[in-house]
């Protein structure tokens, strides 16, 4: 299985497009960050003033714009071998989530495929999978669409962790997941608070209620709930993704240039594909 495309690359058009894509990436990340900061600054006044339409529109618009800009920057430059993994990862997000759900563990575990593709193909592929997964899955459940930016962040951070070699030792993977969960939970909290007014699960809803009973604002209560649930969830997701990456034959995992170049996984490349 070679990584090289069988057709000649169009060198001229790629070189000119690189700065534009970098601009799109920065604009996307800036849109998400600016939206978050704006919502955190304006929220205390908003909730007392009736329906959160204003914040909902800002949250939806800003986060979706950021997610789409990131996708537009990343998607056209991904190699085909990564691209064909994305549908697999999106489906795995759901199927493995359900399979793990059948074990009775009280977590959502809905990002296993995203983390797996980030480990195999890098941060850009992980972020794009997060956004595309949210878009595709909204065909069945439209409420996941607003969380696209959070899903992109999970994929991106998982890819960075893989590049830094955190998946080479099994005990670092949950730590990386824990830290990712903190960031992703905090970024996703304004969506849950302003667009949906709460969380969909009854367990998470009970935790939010407890913080509300102590007089927290809705955003503060949901952020605290996310800080309780998400790091644990993502630590488990990263562990499962690491276990899967090591359970796959090395002939398969080492065919990805990202895995070979940054020595993402422990162990040596099999001799037949090392060339």
């Amino acid at each position, binding site marked *: 299985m070679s990584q090289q*495309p069988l057709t000649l690359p169009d060198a001229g058009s790629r070189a000119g497009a690189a700065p534009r894509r970098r601009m799109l990436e920065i604009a996307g990340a800036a849109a998400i960050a600016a939206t978050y900061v704006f919502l955190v600054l304006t929220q205390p006044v908003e909730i007392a*003033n009736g329906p959160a339409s204003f914040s909902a529109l800002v949250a939806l618009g800003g986060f979706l714009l950021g997610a789409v800009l990131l996708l537009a920057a990343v998607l056209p430059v991904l190699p085909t071998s990564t691209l064909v993994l994305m549908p697999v990862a999106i489906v795995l997000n759901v199927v493995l989530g359900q399979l793990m759900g059948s074990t009775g563990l009280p977590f959502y575990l809905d990002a296993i495929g995203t983390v797996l593709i980030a480990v195999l193909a890098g941060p850009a592929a992980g972020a794009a999978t997060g956004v595309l997964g949210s878009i595709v899955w909204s065909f069945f459940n439209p*409420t996941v669409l607003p969380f696209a930016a959070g899903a992109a962040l999970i994929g991106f951070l998982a890819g960075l962790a893989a590049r830094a070699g955190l998946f080479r030792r099994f005990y670092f993977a949950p730590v990386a997941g824990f830290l990712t969960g903190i960031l992703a939970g905090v970024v996703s909290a304004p969506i849950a608070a302003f667009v949906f007014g709460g969380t969909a699960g009854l367990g998470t809803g009970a935790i939010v209620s407890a913080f509300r009973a102590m007089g927290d604002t809705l955003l503060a209560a949901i952020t605290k709930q996310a800080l309780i649930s998400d790091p644990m969830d993502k630590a488990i997701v990263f562990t499962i993704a690491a276990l899967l990456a090591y359970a*796959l034959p090395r002939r*398969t995992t080492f065919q990805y240039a990202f895995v070979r170049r940054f020595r993402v996984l422990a162990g040596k490349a099999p001799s037949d594909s090392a060339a």
Partner: protein
Amino acid sequence: MSLHPLTALTAACCAAVVTTAAGSWPLSVAVALAAALLAARAGVAARVLTAAGVILGPLFLSLLVLHGLFFPEGHTVLAQWGPARITAEGLDFALELGSRTAASVLLLLLFSFTVSVPDLVTALAARRVPPQFSFVLASTLTLVPAMAGRLEKIRRAQEARGLVVERGLLSRLAAARLQAVPLVLGLVEDAGARAQALDARGFGTPGPRTSYRQLQDPPAQRILRAAALLLAAAAVVLRLVTAWPAAVPA
């Protein structure tokens, strides 16, 4: 006359945006009912309502418990037990957000359960959306039904080799591993083969594409789309302008 996929998508999204911007529960309930009626006319009412129920049921319950009982900003107390207070403002807030989400969910489900995915992909390609996006969209939507069958085959094969799921957590984790690893391995292998096939057909190369499918895009529907977009933009601008002074602290 059949709807162009982009017309249906624009209509669903713009209606959802206008409902969100309006933020009034009678409008949200009316939009949700209209979406349900349209779904019944299109013959997908059962699927749309089932999917919406699974999504909205837990959300409604959670909103009711959360805002119904704990709403520190509320003043009109209807009943009180210890720290839990039922306030009129809290119930109002739950109704407002619940009906708004319900309207948007029903609208988007109505779109996704009535759209023809090949038509949608054709329409996107004609709009110069990167072909990679269309590929992932169409490929995932066709992979989802195939996946259930594949997982079932793997489970049977493992059971034939002596997989017995017992009650303990460790046994269930082991069973999950025995099913997950072959599933992931098979899918990743398939993906590698597909990448070579796609590359051999020039999938990764830049340049214009032609499509085998042709879609009718009547002028009336173009005007309808433009009008819907204008209406949604106007609703958003109106809401942002009217809410701005109150929403931003001085």
